């Protein structure tokens, strides 16, 4: 007589939080309950990790942008979820005639590669990824980061000679791709503005109509808006949300027109913006006081959530410091997971990483005392 013991495999989702900091990368993991967290790192200790991002096509394929003033740019790749790393190609050469953009004093300044601000792996191929760099340009690799080719249609756009760096440099910091149509891309550059491509990055057109920036002599000018971050829900590629130097904005026609949705936030200055994983009209920002005062109003760290795609905002404070808090949250340091109860994560310039397992209602610090956090990305793993 046989006794059949069936082992039932129960798959429990996991979360992997990828944290880039001023002095290395950290990987923070938990199971789907998101109560107990394990911190691993620093990886690349002593180097700034500007951005670290996983491939949607292969979650164990990670890419990291590693940089110091001394040694410049290094790109790293992992094939085992960050346990081991391999340095890949770090040669970013502009195509053709380099040309000039405006310098801070208005004089022409030649394009010079400095560093990679943002990595965007493709949705369907772990070996294909895009890199947004300073001075602003878009590069593509189709061999896992070994070789990089510029998509020069962006830098050579007719307005390129008028682009000017923001205070942090002329960085291309946002790359969005429509998951259903890889021909459709958006990028954002500080302080040039937002651009859209409908041919996979070969050509671009300005997507700033409706923006207004009082820091410009002509506030509605097409070029010169200091866009800090764009966010898009993958199911609605025509709707993009923007945190600008000042103003929170949205477009519902793929950047043909924007409108302000700052509503009742205590300050509409900030850097990051993110969209809930399952609710395309639920968005998050972290207001700071002003362009000079890069800390939260009243010393209270508050995430603001709008469930109406902007205009009406509620503050989320439970578990966050509500006195004497003067940290900032940088543009790539806010992310969401895709568990049923959407998790929200952000890192601060004070070295804390906060997580919410209930869409922002309550928060806990899952890391403290890290170096200044440059970026936070989250992977939801089976």
């Amino acid at each position, binding site marked *: 007589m046989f006794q059949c013991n069936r082992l039932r495999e129960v798959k429990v989702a996991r979360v992997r939080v990828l944290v880039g900091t001023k002095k290395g990368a950290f990987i923070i993991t938990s199971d789907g309950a998101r109560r107990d967290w394990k911190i691993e790192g620093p990886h690349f*200790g*002593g180097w700034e990790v500007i951005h670290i991002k996983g491939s949607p096509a292969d979650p164990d394929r990670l890419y990291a942008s590693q940089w*110091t*003033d*001394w040694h*410049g740019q*290094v790109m790293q790749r992992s094939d085992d979820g960050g346990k081991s790393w391999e340095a890949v190609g*770090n040669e970013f050469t502009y195509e053709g005639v380099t040309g000039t953009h405006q310098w801070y004093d208005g004089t022409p300044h030649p394009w010079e590669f400095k560093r990679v601000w943002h990595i965007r792996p493709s949705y369907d191929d772990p070996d294909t990824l895009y890199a947004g760099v300073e001075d602003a340009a878009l590069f593509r690799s189709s061999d896992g980061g070994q070789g990089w080719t510029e998509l020069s249609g962006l830098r050579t756009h007719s307005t390129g000679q008028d682009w000017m760096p923001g205070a942090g440099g002329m960085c291309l910091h946002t790359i969005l791709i429509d998951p259903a149509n890889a021909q459709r891309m958006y990028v954002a550059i500080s302080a040039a503005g937002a651009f859209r491509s409908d041919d996979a990055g070969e050509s671009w057109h300005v997507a700033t109509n409706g923006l207004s920036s009082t820091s410009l002599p002509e506030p509605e000018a097409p070029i010169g808006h200091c866009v800090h971050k764009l966010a898009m829900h993958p199911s609605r590629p025509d709707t993009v949300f923007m945190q600008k130097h000042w103003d929170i904005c949205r477009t519902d026609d793929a950047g043909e027109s924007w409108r302000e949705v700052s509503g009742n936030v205590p300050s509409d200055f900030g850097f990051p913006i993110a969209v809930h994983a399952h609710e395309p009209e639920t968005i998050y920002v972290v207001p700071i006081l002003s362009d000079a005062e890069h800390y939260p109003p009243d010393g209270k760290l508050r995430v603001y959530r709008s469930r109406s795609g902007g205009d009406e905002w509620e503050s989320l404070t439970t578990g966050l410091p509500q006195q004497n808090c003067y940290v900032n949250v940088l543009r790539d340091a806010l992310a969401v997971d895709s568990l049923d109860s959407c998790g929200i994560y952000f890192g601060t310039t004070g070295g804390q990483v906060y997580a919410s397992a209930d869409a922002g209602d309550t928060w806990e610090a899952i890391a403290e005392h890290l170096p200044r956090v440059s970026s936070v990305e989250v992977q939801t793993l089976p």
Partner: protein
Amino acid sequence: MVRVVLSSPLRTLAGIEGEVEVEVADHPTVTTVLDALESRYPMLRGTIRDHGTDRRRDFIRFFACGRDLSHDPPDERLPDPVSSGADALLVVGAIAGG
């Protein structure tokens, strides 16, 4: 055989502990030593001198025999104690804060 001592961040990047020895033909120069070093450790390309121009990065210094060789022509012959292995070529991160 030329001995090279790299700064800590470069050792971390290349996975090196201690100093490195590289084979270089007679009359080693900064250029030939770095060529040999980068051939053995390709991840160092672009981190000591720039891609394309091979120009020394601004915050990198080359020391040997108690001297700063950073501003010498990179194709100039290195001091004899470096060529003989009695002294090492130091690749140093300049003191620049941070």
